[in-house]
């Protein structure tokens, strides 16, 4: 855990020095909202449609972060330096997934208000706690799968292609659950702010299974 914190701190410091990833993710999300506005030819959207737009947008933005996740490690010898140290290899997985989770949260802090401003019809206030719960679970799934896929893709020749190509199908169940859970929250006449428990359970199950799986196989991705 201590090692994971060391690596995470290093990653956050590098992001704060370069501002390469998070601003790009935010920008992509904003542009996607604009595209949806024209693509759907609507000023406001609500319900399941709004949930779908939000999920797709967050996914595309997340893919940018996933692609960048291990590039510095690979190009600047970070993998070797990490492997030379007497530390647990899984710390790298934990650190990278935590980093991606933080990036995604930062993205959503900006993208969700922007979503309300640009597209969403119904008010967000009453459903905010439910929405945050959904997004936290979704971010865990995106972070775990994203880290695993990125670690696989970074050692391939066509890494920019392989990452999304593997990642998108793997994420489909999580995305279905996210969109379906968020749908009722965006309904104009919502009665309660609680998201459907069924979908939250699926999202949580998905997160748990893949977190354990990633933990089990990650070491094999670091060896040479």
């Amino acid at each position: 855990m201590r090692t994971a914190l060391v690596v995470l701190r290093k990653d956050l410091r590098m992001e704060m020095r370069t501002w390469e990833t998070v601003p790009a993710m935010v920008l992509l999300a904003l542009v996607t909202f604009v595209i949806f506005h024209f693509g759907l030819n609507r000023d406001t959207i609500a319900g399941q449609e709004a949930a779908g737009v939000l999920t797709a947008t967050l996914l595309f933005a997340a893919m940018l972060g996933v692609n960048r996740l291990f590039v510095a490690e690979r190009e600047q010898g970070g993998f070797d330096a990490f492997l030379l140290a007497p530390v647990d290899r899984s710390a790298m997985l934990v650190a990278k997934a935590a980093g991606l989770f933080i990036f995604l949260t930062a993205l959503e802090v900006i993208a969700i208000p922007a979503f309300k401003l640009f597209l969403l019809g119904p008010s967000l206030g009453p459903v905010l706690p439910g929405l945050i719960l959904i997004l936290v679970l979704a971010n865990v799934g995106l972070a775990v799968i994203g880290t695993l896929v990125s670690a696989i893709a970074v050692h391939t020749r066509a890494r920019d292609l392989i990452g999304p190509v593997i990642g998108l199908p793997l994420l489909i169940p999580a995305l279905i659950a996210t969109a379906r859970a968020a749908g009722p929250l965006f309904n104009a006449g919502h009665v309660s702010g609680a998201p459907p428990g069924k979908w939250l359970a699926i999202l949580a199950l998905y997160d748990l299974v893949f977190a354990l799986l990633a933990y089990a196989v990650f070491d094999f991705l670091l060896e040479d």
Partner: protein
Amino acid sequence: MHTTYGKGLRGLSIAAIVTIGAALALAFFYAPLDANQGFIQKIFYIHVPLAIVTLCGFIFGALMAVQYLRTGDRRWDMRSYVAIHMALIFGIVGLITGSIWAKASWGHWWVWNEPTLVSYLIVLLLFCTYQPLRFSIEDPERQSRYASVFAIVAGAFVPLNFIAVRLAQQYVHPRVLTLTGGNLPGSMLLTFLVSLLGISLLYATLWKYEMAAKNARSQVRRLRRTLLGEDTMRPVGRSAAPS
């Protein structure tokens, strides 16, 4: 290192031919016409076994990938590769037959409210990336390792995906042909089970056949190396298949 895969291949292929023959005979001469779907329902006897064998093949490949990571023995990676490769071929046939069935009974080549079909498509899409992934990793050892990790993750993905997609669909069409429903008449069930066995045997036969062919090729290469030295080796083109 001298494993042979050809052994028992003849018996297996004869068993596959006999069982599939029996399944065809049962399907067309023994099993009654379905009350709702009529003759169309005969596609069921080929489509569903293909789909089941495909998914089992993916999981089979994942289990062998686990073995590879545990032992580091490249033969397990080869087995896993062939299992996934064959399952993918079966899967594409299964998808086409499923699509034909959808067209025949609902008038559309593709229906979104058939959750099994949709999850099946997602799983196939995922496993379609297995070959490109292998192909874009140059170092053979790394290729085996990464492909195994992918196979394990994707194998675990299969059941999860089915749960999620099934829950996401409302059942618009009556589900007459669920296996879990147990509403299959005995004669249909028997026909179905014989076809399932037949397709499974076919899968096993082709898996063994492919393994034997790959093994023979690598043995020839090894023989050339030991008899004539490494210098006489023609460089092999980069490939997705383990060597």
